[in-house]
Structure formats: structure tokens, C-alpha cells
């Protein structure tokens, strides 16, 4: 390099654009037909996909006379096995969401985009869709030829079969989704009688369209350009994260295998530039350029590379799960020395504890006491002071309850309107207005605590109690 300013400028420009060559900007102009090769990771991927089986089968499980898991939106209830969770308990949902958000973070920090590569519905559905495509249309080369070929009867037959199957999967997805929100068996009955509600029909149609377009056409484009999590997870990965990595120390300089050439006088690295890793990649990236935005860390390139290495009698693991630090000769930092692991684990533990606490203390009945604000108190003709309260009795059980309301044992206190028990309807909030009167001379403060108790027994004879503190307000 000379000291001439012009040539230095040119050198900077060259360097800049040399980098640009490696930018993988896949705008979906060309459909990616990834090759499918068998292997360890391929099997693992199918196993991981099984987490979606409960999504399809879960709604058909029963508990007593109703669905075991049911998000009953019209009645604002969530049934989980024998437990009914009402909106009042939904603070637990925020902890659950926190748990999964942090789980995503910790897994990504340790092993890359595991969610994207193995579990995400976009990945799993696309995988199933392309599997069908391969079964019907054959391997990638054949598929490309079919796409470009003339419109023959065979082509129409294959294409119609494929699209019909895709739509059926979409419909099953939609129906399964809806089945979590309404009685699953009744849903099928209504479906066959063409008697579905508008919400169900629209939801199912949207799912069919969404599944068809996202898994059938957009595929990796969704990960590249639509999905925010793909980007968020990118920032969670660091040098200690184990991700599918090409060992460039071992692989470079890459070079084709020469026939008859002995291993001894080989001057190239282990990479034979066979491009198998690119051919199997569902997002069409080249892992040899390093970890990049398009890589969903599905590890299928590892299978492909290992198969080639095995055939060539070279050691496996040219592409393997490895962190950048280890690849560059640094020692692997143990888990307990990573502050992130500690912080994430702590948050996970806290949210789990919160959910556990919430589930363990789910009360069958719960009362809320609303003190009337205007007027705060009313003077009665005998000189006593009256306060008005609205008592809301929440009954989470599946049976109506007769709930007795009592007030604390204050001298001279009269509780009006609670002589008869409140009939708390099942799964609902029942309100009752009560009045508390206290003789003026017995009142000790302008505002004194007033605890209400609700008591009932359920059909099995178990005593259920709930209490709630409010105030009694009197003039100065």
C-alpha cells in the first residue's frame, strides 16, 4: 500500500465492499428448496417438534363434566384441570410470561436460537410443509424442475394435492386453536352442522390463511423480515454462546477434494467446499461466513457436514456447536462464572415461586369491600353513625354458595343488611350492600379499621373463609 491519499482511499472502499459481498440479503425472490439429510440433529428436530402435539390433542381431555383446559373468554374464566382461575388471579399470568421471556433469554444466551431452530411454530410448520413437498414433488432439483416445467396434468395433480394438504393442516391448526376457547367436541359437531359462530369461523379462516401463507410461501422470509424475536435474540448471543459454528481454523483454506490425491500432501483445510451446508439450510445462509441474522441455529448443517466428513474419513465436527471463545482457543467459561446465568436463574426462580405461591393460595371465595365515598357517613336519628359498604363476593367454585357476612366485634356495632346469607353464584361476583352503624360515643377515631369476614361451607363440608379490611369513617 502506498502513501498516496488516492490509493489509500481506494483501499478503504475496496475493504468496505469486500464485506458487502458477504451480506446475505434474501428478499424471497427465489424459493429456497433445502435438501433434507438424515442425521442426529434431524431426529432431535422431529422430537422437538412434538411439543406441538399437545396443541392439537390437549382440548379433547376432560375433567369432570367439562374440558380439562379451557380459556372461557365469554365467562372470563380459565379452567386448568380442577382449578378455575378468574381474572382476579391473572397476575400469575404476568409471572408466567416473565418466566417464558427469561427462559428464552437464558437458553439463547447459552445455546443460541434454540427456540427458532427447534420449537418455533414457524420453523415446525414450515418443516412439515416442506416435508410434504418433498414427499410429493421429490428432492430439491426435481422440485425446481417441476416449478419451471410446463403445466402438465401430473404437475396440476401434484400441486393440487400439495396445496390441499397444506390447507387441511391450516384448518386443523385453526380448529385446534379455537378448541382451547370453547368445548372441543361441540366445536366439531357445530362444524359439521355448519353451525359455527362468526368468531370461530373468522378465527379458523385467518389461521388457514396465516398457516398457508407463512409456512407455504413466506417461510424463512418471516424469520428474516417479519419476526421481532429473531432480532431480539441476536443481541442475547455473545462470545461464550455455543451455536452451530464453522471451525474456520480447521476448514480453511477450503478446497475441493482431488481424485486420487493422497491425504498426506494435502495443502487445503478440511472444508471440501461441497456446499452441502448451504444446500440443507432452510434459510439459505452459508454458515461458513459465521453466525449471522439469517441463521436460526437449527443445526441441520452439522448433520450435512458430518455426513460428508464421515465419507471422506476426516474427523467430524467441522461444523459443530461451539462458542466463538472456545473456537479461538480460549478456555470455556464455566456456567457459574457467567453473571447472566445467575441473574436469569434468579428471575426464573422468583417467577416460579410467585406462580407456586399463587396456585397454592388460590382461595375458593374472596371478598372485596368497597366503602361508599359519598356520603362517607350518615348521621342517624339516634345519633349513631352509619357507613355504607358494597361487599362483592367472588365464588370460584362450580357450585352456588350461601356466604355469611360478619363484621368485627365492636361494642354497639350494628350490621344491617347481612341477616340473610349472600347467594354467591358459581364462578361469579355477587354484590351485597350492607350498612354498619356504631353509636357515636363508641367511635374512637375519625377513621378506624373495619374487617369484614365471609364464611361458607362447600358441598363437601369444607369451611371457606375470606376476610377483607376496610375503614369506618365518622365525623370529627
Amino acid at each position, binding site marked *: 500500500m502506498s502513501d498516496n491519499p488516492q490509493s489509500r482511499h481506494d483501499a478503504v472502499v475496496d475493504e468496505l465492499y469486500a464485506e458487502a459481498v458477504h451480506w446475505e440479503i434474501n428478499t424471497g425472490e427465489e424459493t429456497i428448496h433445502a435438501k433434507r439429510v438424515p442425521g442426529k440433529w434431524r431426529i432431535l428436530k422431529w422430537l422437538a417438534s412434538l411439543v406441538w402435539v399437545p396443541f392439537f390433542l390437549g382440548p379433547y381431555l376432560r375433567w369432570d363434566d367439562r374440558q380439562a383446559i379451557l380459556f372461557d373468554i365469554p365467562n372470563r374464566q380459565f379452567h386448568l384441570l380442577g382449578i378455575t382461575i378468574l381474572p382476579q388471579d391473572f397476575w400469575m399470568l404476568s409471572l408466567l410470561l416473565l418466566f417464558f421471556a427469561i427462559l428464552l433469554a437464558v437458553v439463547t444466551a447459552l445455546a443460541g436460537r434454540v427456540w427458532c431452530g427447534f420449537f418455533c411454530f414457524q420453523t415446525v410448520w414450515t418443516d412439515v410443509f416442506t416435508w410434504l413437498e418433498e414427499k410429493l414433488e421429490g428432492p430439491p432439483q426435481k422440485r425446481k424442475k417441476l416449478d419451471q416445467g410446463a403445466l402438465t396434468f401430473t404437475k396440476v395433480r401434484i400441486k393440487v394435492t400439495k396445496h390441499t394438504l397444506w390447507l387441511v393442516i391450516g384448518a386443523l391448526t385453526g380448529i385446534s386453536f379455537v378448541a382451547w376457547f370453547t368445548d372441543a367436541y361441540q366445536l366439531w359437531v357445530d362444524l359439521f352442522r355448519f353451525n359455527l359462530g362468526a368468531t370461530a369461523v373468522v378465527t379458523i379462516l385467518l389461521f388457514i390463511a396465516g398457516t398457508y401463507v407463512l409456512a407455504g410461501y*413466506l417461510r424463512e422470509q418471516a424469520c428474516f423480515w417479519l419476526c421481532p424475536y429473531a432480532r431480539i435474540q441476536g443481541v442475547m448471543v455473545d462470545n461464550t454462546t455455543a451455536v452451530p459454528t464453522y471451525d474456520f481454523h480447521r476448514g480453511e483454506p477450503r478446497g475441493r477434494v482431488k481424485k486420487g490425491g493422497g491425504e498426506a500432501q494435502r495443502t487445503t483445510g478440511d472444508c471440501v467446499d461441497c456446499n452441502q451446508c448451504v444446500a440443507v439450510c432452510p434459510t439459505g445462509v452459508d454458515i461458513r461466513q459465521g453466525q449471522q441474522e439469517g441463521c436460526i441455529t437449527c443445526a441441520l448443517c452439522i448433520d450435512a457436514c458430518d455426513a460428508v466428513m464421515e465419507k471422506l474419513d476426516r474427523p467430524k465436527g467441522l461444523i459443530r456447536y461451539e462458542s466463538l471463545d472456545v473456537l479461538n482457543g480460549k478456555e470455556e467459561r464455566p456456567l457459574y462464572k457467567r453473571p447472566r446465568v445467575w441473574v436469569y436463574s434468579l428471575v426464573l426462580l422468583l417467577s416460579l415461586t410467585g406462580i407456586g405461591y399463587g396456585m397454592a393460595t388460590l382461595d375458593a371465595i374472596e371478598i372485596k369491600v368497597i366503602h361508599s365515598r359519598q356520603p362517607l357517613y350518615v348521621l*342517624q336519628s339516634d*345519633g349513631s353513625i352509619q357507613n355504607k359498604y358494597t361487599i362483592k363476593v367472588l365464588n370460584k367454585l362450580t357450585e352456588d354458595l350461601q356466604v355469611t357476612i360478619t363484621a368485627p366485634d365492636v361494642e354497639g356495632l350494628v350490621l344491617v343488611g347481612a341477616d340473610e346469607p349472600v347467594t354467591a353464584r358459581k364462578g361469579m361476583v355477587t354484590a351485597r350492600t350492607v350498612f354498619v352503624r356504631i353509636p357515636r360515643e363508641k367511635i374512637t377515631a375519625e377513621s378506624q379499621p373495619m374487617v369484614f369476614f365471609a364464611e361458607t361451607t362447600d358441598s363437601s363440608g369444607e369451611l371457606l373463609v375470606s376476610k377483607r379490611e376496610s375503614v369506618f369513617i365518622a365525623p370529627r
Partner: protein
Amino acid sequence: MADNNPFPGENNTGHIWDDNLRELDNPPPRWWMIAFWASIIWVAGYGILYPMIPGLTGYTKGIMGWTQIGEYQEGVAEVEKVRGEFEAQLQGMTAKEILANEGLSSYTIASAKVLFGDNCAACHGSNGQGGPGFPVIADDDWLYGGAVETIEQTITNGRMGVMPAHAKLLSEGEVDKLAAAVMSGNPAAEPLYMEKACFACHGPDGRGMQALGSANLTDAVWRFNEADQQASVKQTIRHGVNDTSDPMSRAAVMPKFGDRLSANEIKKLAVYVYKLGGGQ
């Protein structure tokens, strides 16, 4: 352009600045184009189904015949239908029967809240807490009685109790004495109470008479409650209530609602007032 393009074969538009900064003619991403065309189809479909394009004399109505006011009216009709079932039940019931039914009285209280706000709250306060010169109706002190039928009657026909002005009949000293007696809570102990015929309306024991609407002078609740209660009592004794011969007389009129509200609405209001806290 094409002949002297320094970066051939990369699909640029030929617009080049600063030697190498050039505008490429790349297609937008596939998903973007799908969304773009889908939006156009959506707009076309929407235009066919729904009102869309304004014109000089109207607008395109759309084949669904949907209108905003129509949707509103449907919503109103739906609410009316739900209420209708309750209203039909209320129609044939007396206020007392409604009070005996917890579900129906809950409905009545909820639906009469608006009626109370429109017709009663201006004087009696939003929750019956009363106002300057206007009685509290959330307590248990009733001039005419706190039975639900009586409340119904009060709303239907209105009330206008009269207490004559005594400024010309009593000396200042007598007014002071009577006021002090009323303040003590036992006016009957004062000889003047009998002598000046206060008992005729307020009763021999000073407890008032609900048939007349005369105030109970022995309880803790004041009909005309003011900061200086003694002065307030004196003012009432001197100038009376609703006495047309005395221009300083207190005005205390409950207007008649029988010709403004339907019997059913009044019945609901009576239940509402009864449940404010002092029904008897």
C-alpha cells in the same frame, strides 16, 4: 447511460454520486409485495361491502347496507331486549314485592341510578347525602315516613309541609327559650312548648307527626342543618317554613313527579331511595 456505466451488471439506475454511491433498482422483499397487493384487494373488497367513497349527493353505500347509526341501534335494541325481561317482571309488581326479591331489587337499583341522577340528585345529592336546605335521604329520619309505599307517594305527589311564622306571636325571650329547649333534645320539658301550642304539630313528646310531615325535634338529625344550629332553629321558629305571609320563611318544597315520570319509574326510584340506607 448503459454505455458508460462504471458498475455494469449490478442493476443500478445510473444515478451515481461521489464516484461510487449509486442507486440500485432492487425489488422490494416478497412479503412486502404480498402485503401490498393484499392491501389493494382488501380496499376493493371493503369498498364493495361497506360505505366508502363520498360524492356530491351522497356516498357509495356498500352491499352490506352497514351504517354506524344502524350498528348503534342494534346495540341499543340488544340492551333493551335484556332489560325488557326484567322490566316486564317489574311491571306487575309492587315496590314491596321488588324489595323482597334480591335479584330484581339489584336490577332496579342499577337501572334507577340514572333516574335518580336526572331527577333527584340536584337537591338530594348524588347518593342521597342531601344539600344545604335539602334533606338527607340516606338516613333513617323521615318527615313523612320511610316505608317504601310512602316514599313512592312522596315522589308521585310531592310534599310541602307548612310551619307558621312565630315572629309576631313570640317575644325574643320566648324564641330563645324554645330554641334552647329544642337544642336540648327534650322540648316537651319547656312549659312554653305546650303553652304556645308547638305540640299541636310536633306532638306532645316532640317526636313530630308523619301525617303532617312535622319534624321530630328529639332526634339527632336536623331538618335545617347549619353550622350555628341554634341560630338555625331560631330562624325556623321566627319565620316558619313555607309560610307565604312571611317573606323570610324557609322554602321547602318537594316537587310532584307524578306527571313527569311514569308510575313504573317512580316505583323504581322508591326502591332505590329505600335502599340508600334508611328505608323502614
